[in-house]
């Protein structure tokens, strides 16, 4: 019996430790949403934590929350980009009766039942970055940073300008099941066939979220296909990895590297000329706009049928149907890359 007592004692100590951590982490505005009273509670979820891109989104979200005042912002999500780890957060936030949930979905269909349940319980739901199934989830708006179409075309146009319209190109993607990357690849293929029929994709490699593999795979591509003229790096991990490989192979200027990533992680390559253009929307602005939209949806000032939306320092942005558009993708070059710190 004595041992059972000791075990229980140890358990209590352990959980007290945890609750101490919990208390330290909890926002000063009170525990849970129920006590928030007049404050508008907005919960924002990234696809995953631990990457530069979503850190920038979080920064923009916090900036907007501060600016608007009277907002209790929760920002959390899984540490791996898995949809089954996103669902428990949605369920928990629904239970807390937050006012708005804004989520970047890892899978459009998988997340929808959980979002629907939230809607049924009176929680407002919007999506950003990657949409849910609009019909099945009942989400009210999608804050769209740039359409797949815009991004795919911008990438291909940029490659044609740098490597020529008849270039043989390779793509370094993320995981073979990554939905955004696959959607971009589909647009790129179609658009190439339309506009640059002589451009040819010779291989697509999937290094998952591993910079080392993106690096060595690009090295191998350069050697296996000596006539390759351009490499697309279409994830924030693949792009720096591919650029590193091209630079270390001494092919700067001979092989164009075009892709999507944050300016911060690409600055070095842009400065030394390995990469001429980084394409991306502004993730800080995306987070900022998301929180503005969340507030407007909760207060009923943004309704279906609107065509314009006023979002603080971003001015007026366009609304098309149930999508709020951040605007066309940005291009970061040696001229402007130093102006951005994300």
């Amino acid at each position, binding site marked *: 019996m004595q041992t059972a007592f000791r075990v229980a004692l140890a358990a209590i100590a352990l959980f007290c430790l945890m609750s101490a951590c919990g208390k330290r982490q909890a926002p000063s505005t009170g525990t849970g949403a129920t006590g928030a009273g007049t404050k508008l509670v907005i919960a924002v979820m990234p696809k995953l*934590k*631990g*990457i*530069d891109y*979503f*850190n920038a989104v979080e920064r923009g979200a916090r900036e907007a929350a501060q600016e608007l005042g009277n907002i209790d912002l929760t920002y959390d999500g899984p*540490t791996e980009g898995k949809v089954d780890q996103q669902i428990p957060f949605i369920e928990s936030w629904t239970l807390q009766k937050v006012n708005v949930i804004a989520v970047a979905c890892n899978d459009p269909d998988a997340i929808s039942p959980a979002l629907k349940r939230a809607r049924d319980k009176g929680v407002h739901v919007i999506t950003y970055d990657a949409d849910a199934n609009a019909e099945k989830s009942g989400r009210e708006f999608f804050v769209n940073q740039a359409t797949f179409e815009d991004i795919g075309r911008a990438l291909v146009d940029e490659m044609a300008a740098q490597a020529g319209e008849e270039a043989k190109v390779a793509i370094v993607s993320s995981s*073979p099941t990554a939905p955004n990357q696959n959607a971009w690849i589909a647009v790129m293929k179609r658009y190439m066939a339309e506009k640059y029929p002589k451009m040819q994709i010779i*291989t*697509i*490699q*999937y290094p*998952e*979220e*591993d*910079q*080392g*593999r993106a*690096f*060595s*795979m690009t*090295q*191998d*591509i350069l*050697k*296996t296909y*000596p006539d390759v003229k351009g490499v697309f790096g279409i994830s924030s*991990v693949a792009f*720096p*990895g591919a*650029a*590193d490989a091209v630079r*270390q192979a001494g092919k700067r200027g001979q092989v164009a590297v075009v892709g999507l990533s944050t300016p*911060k*992680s690409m*600055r*070095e*390559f842009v400065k030394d000329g390995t990469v001429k253009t980084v394409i991306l929307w502004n993730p800080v602005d995306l987070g900022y706009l998301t929180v503005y939209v969340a507030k407007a949806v909760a207060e009923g000032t943004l309704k279906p049928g609107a065509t314009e939306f006023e979002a603080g320092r971003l001015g007026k942005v366009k609304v098309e149907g149930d999508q709020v558009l951040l605007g066309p993708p940005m291009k970061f070059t040696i001229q402007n890359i130093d102006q951005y710190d994300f």
Partner: protein
Amino acid sequence: MSVGVFLVLLLGYFGATPGFLRVENLRDILINAAPLIIAACGMTMVIVAGMIDISAGSALAVCAVVAGLTAKSGAALPFVVLLPILTGALIGAVNGWLVAAARIPAIIVTLGMMSVLRGGVIWWTRGEWIGNLPASFSAVGRGEVAGVPVPVLVATSVVLATALLLSRTPLGRHVYAVGGNPLAAARMGIPVGRVLWLVFVMHGALLGLSALVYASRFSVIQSNAGAGFELLTISAVVVGGVNIFGGQGTVWGSAIGGLLLQVISTGLIFRRVSEYWAPSVQGALVLLAVVADALRTRRAGR
């Protein structure tokens, strides 16, 4: 040494593609395999001692971040080299203490540590990647000494050192004894707990070194680096013919195992294998290597 034969066969198969056997490609393969080989040497000691470590990937991320932050703080090169190694050794010391003193099975300790370290590194860095690294740091991973790339040099020295340690020193013999039969080892007067603890500390230090070599080759350090690295390392060791139950195996086998994994990964791209099928071909080749080894040792045992 069936893994060696296997490596030669694969080199022959992939070598038929143009450019594969060129010196620069072989050199790249060696450089890319270096972090894996260094970690596999440490893992060999752990597995020979009858233990396992599945927190290696998370520990790699922690050490890589430590290396990057130290380099960025402007510290002198010796510190930049030493600090990640010490961090790794410290992690190993904690793992080793839990295994040796608290007597918790290694697989449980390191399964727990895997989440603790992975969560901890994201908490600590808040997920920020580390860029703008000084040139002196890159020199570690991209430099050359007398025409030999530094990662290859480091990996070769580590293989030699650990091989000597395991085969020529009392500590090495103790490691085999502890892994082969811990009870008998204790009866012979070997301080089993201390040997296990030392093995984990050395393995941790080598992971730190591996992280340094890995991180210093790139311009940005991912705070979520090393996912799945533990399984890759264990695969290298196992393909290298080390007995998973401890007591048998050599560092040479593991080093060739690590090299083999990199050769397969590069070779499949040269062979233009469909990128969707490449992972299963990789899995099948690993399985083939292990089955061949199992059949061979079973026949030898009879």
